[in-house]
């Protein structure tokens, strides 16, 4: 994955250090090694590696991680612009 880097400074990923209990699950589940443990707390070491899949937030028992996950294809995003997020569908005939 080192050959593949996308745009910088765009991720919605946020970590609440006060809420973090240092379990290390985020570091384990992240497919891009965005998190690393720093003593008894997690830290976002590589924010620009984040693809906003949401695995970290979903697996954080302490609820210390916030991210807006979603589908990143152009057809879907155009649908959200036209129809709104609720009506847009990733599996409709207009999408794959």
């Amino acid at each position, binding site marked *: *994955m080192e*050959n*593949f*880097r*996308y*745009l910088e400074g*765009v*991720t*919605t990923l946020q970590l609440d250090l006060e809420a973090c209990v240092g379990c290390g699950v985020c*570091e*384990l589940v*992240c*497919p*891009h*090694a965005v998190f690393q443990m720093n003593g008894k707390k997690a830290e976002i070491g590589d924010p620009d*590696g*984040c*693809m*906003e899949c949401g695995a970290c937030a979903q697996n954080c028992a302490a609820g210390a991680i916030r991210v*807006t*996950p*979603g*589908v*990143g*294809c*152009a*057809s*879907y*995003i*155009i649908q959200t612009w036209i129809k709104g997020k609720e009506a847009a569908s990733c599996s409709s005939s207009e999408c*794959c």
Partner: protein
Amino acid sequence: MRQVTFSILERTVLIPVELSHLPKPTFWVLLAVFFLSGIGTNIFSLNDAWYRGLMALTAYVGGILAGAVAAPILLPWIPGRAFALKGAFTGIVAGSAVLLLFKGGLIWIEAVALLFITVGISSYLAMNFTGSTPYTSPSGVEKEMRRAIPLQAGAVVIALVAWVGAAFAG
């Protein structure tokens, strides 16, 4: 920790997914291309619709090959991070090949039109490939799209105006 990969084989198997979106829009593109290609000083010429239409269709197919086939395969080696930019690069190469194919049969306005069609289509289709990768973030894709879509749409509009206009100029 397990990390994802995105090898050339993993990218190549996704190409049919990208191509499977195209039959429906292509039907409308075909209608538009042959209709617009027939417009000229004789109001409408079936001969022009066929011969000029085939040239415009070749530019469209070139855009598909550049954006939905070449860009995914060559992804890590194409300059730039934004997929729309990567698609524009492959589109320039494919568009230049289309112009070489019809060398001698085009006036310069037609050449500009065909190049813009190929680059615009290629850029859009490469941008759509962001949905198939395991490293592009939705926030990044949306940022890229806000910049790229006006340029892609502008390229296609300029191409269509130039293509129809060329029939009156030539």
